[in-house]
């Protein structure tokens, strides 16, 4: 099979209902979705439409009320808590809206963190950290703590942390929301470049028009269902 057509994520009849003081609030009402390796996908929709819930369930951070999720062919509901942790560690990179770097770790240590969990040898870790810092143009900031960096620099470190372990996919939740438009555009160009260069799969949850414009595929979620799914050439 062409690796580009590998089914990286598949969902079937995903339903998620939250209970709020006894009131049942539907977040997802039956989502069927397939995402292939190498895609650069934007999931868009108004606030409360279910975008974040969908990403949480795809990444195994949350469980659906009903329905199934397969990650790289493995049924998520069959995985134990530890297996899910290990799967996220080894196969999913996360980029958060608020960067969420570990404040007591230096830039290089933040990037190294996941590789330490994976047990990557020291020399290999250092080589990869050096390479990724060069890719995100932060070589001179390796020994700084996150609070000494600008928002754009912190988000670049977050991208480096997400990518350094060579995950199958990167899930990004509003990654440009806290950045000015120029910084956001630069970061988006960098992620497009990484997608094109390394074939890395990116899935964004976003309101940002710029991301939507540059995405190869745009999935619109509205009222907990897929309202439209457009793939661009």
């Amino acid at each position, binding site marked *: 099979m062409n690796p580009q057509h590998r089914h990286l994520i598949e969902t079937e009849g995903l339903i998620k209902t939250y209970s709020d003081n006894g009131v049942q609030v539907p977040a997802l009402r039956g989502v069927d979705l397939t995402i292939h390796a190498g895609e650069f996908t934007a999931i868009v929709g108004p606030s409360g439409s279910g975008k974040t819930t969908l990403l949480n369930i795809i990444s195994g951070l949350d469980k659906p009320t009903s329905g199934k999720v397969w990650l790289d062919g493995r049924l998520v509901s069959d995985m134990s808590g530890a297996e899910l942790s*290990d799967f996220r560690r080894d196969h999913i990179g996360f980029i*958060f809206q*608020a960067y969420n770097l570990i404040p007591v770790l230096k830039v290089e240590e933040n990037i190294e963190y996941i590789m330490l969990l994976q047990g990557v040898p020291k020399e290999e870790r250092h080589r990869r950290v050096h390479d990724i810092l060069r890719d995100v143009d932060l070589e001179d900031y390796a020994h700084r703590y996150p609070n000494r960096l600008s928002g754009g620099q912190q988000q670049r470190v977050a991208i480096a*942390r997400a990518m350094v372990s060579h995950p199958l996919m990167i899930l990004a939740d509003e990654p440009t929301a806290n950045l000015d438009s120029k910084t956001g555009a630069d970061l988006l160009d960098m992620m497009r470049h990484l997608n094109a260069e390394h074939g890395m799969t990116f899935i964004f949850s976003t309101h940002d028009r710029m991301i939507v414009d540059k995405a190869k595929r745009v999935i619109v979620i509205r009222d907990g269902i897929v309202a439209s799914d457009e793939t661009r050439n």
Partner: protein
Amino acid sequence: MSLYSRLAWRNIFRNKRRTYITGIAVAVGLAALMFLDALYIGMADNMIAAATASFTGEAQIHGRDFLLARDANLTVAGSERLLADLRNDTLVKAFTPRTLSQGMVTSAANVNPVLLVGVRPDTERALSQMDDVIEAGDYFGGNDPQNIVIGRKLADLLEVGVGDRVVVTVSRAGSGELSQDLFRVSGIYRFNTDDLDDGLAFVRIEKAQDMLGLAGRVNEIALSFKDPRVSQDETHPFWTDYSTGGNEALGWPRLFPALKSVYQMTTAASLILGLLLFTVVALGIVNTMFMSIYERMFEFGVLRAVGTRPGGIRRLVILEAGSLALLSIALGVGLGFLVTLIVSLTGVNYQNIEFAGVTIKELIYPVFHLKQYVIFPAGVLLFTLLVGLYPAGFAARMSVTRAMKRTM
């Protein structure tokens, strides 16, 4: 340093003020426990020394049942042979024979019941402190067999001073016939202990034996050991070796049950203080850890999201609690040592205070003991790690999405 250790150590300094306040609270508690334990040991040693060194000795040998009946006719069996054995016993530092009998001392002004003690002044000097607390006259300075040494309270009661004459009346052992003799007060002592200062009168042992009709026999042999711990060890073979032929050898714990209770109380007091400290430690650490966890809820969510297992989160929180404990222990041990050192140089003045029938005569000096620097700090560390399991479990079990709330 491992990843989690490095994270833990840096995390506890994220809120320096809170860490220092908690650390100081635990450190002060540990220092207080160390100091009070040292003081308790010093106080117990002081009281035991006061009780045994003044007159009683660390151990005594009597004829069986003498202590119950206080009958002068119940003498130590084979006392000459025993005295010879004690002279050759390498455990024994000093010993002295005594006669003991109830009697009356009468002066021109008054009369008072006493315990008449017949002593051998040369060996008595090595064992008791009678000669050190003479405040008037001397302690059997000459060879006059009619000399008597009495306490200050008794002298005041009888309205006599050095050189005055008193009559001593006792019952002869066996027959019960009264025996009287005239003595001259040659010395007055002051122990500042009521029982000793108004209830005893000392004469030469030969004179006492003559009055009591004991013909060389003695009622008591008091002794001290080269190693004072022998006197506390009730399983030591010394006691059985000398408890033969109708005799009974007893150490101070059996001679002074109240004092033994005081000694045991110091251990219990340390235990209670320790438990109080550990409770304070537990509450302080748990409170600090929960505050820290709630502040970093999102961060724990991120750590879990990027693949940290629940066990890793648990380990991180326990290491943070352990790091906080180590910091507190370092501070507490230093503080405890310093306070104990200072007070061990100055001493604490409880002089002339009577407790459990014993008057504290010397300054109390805290005593350094290995447990204060090994067991107490280790206890704080272990207890901290133990109570750290609670917040650690909480952090490990928290829902990732709930922790991260608005985002993934």
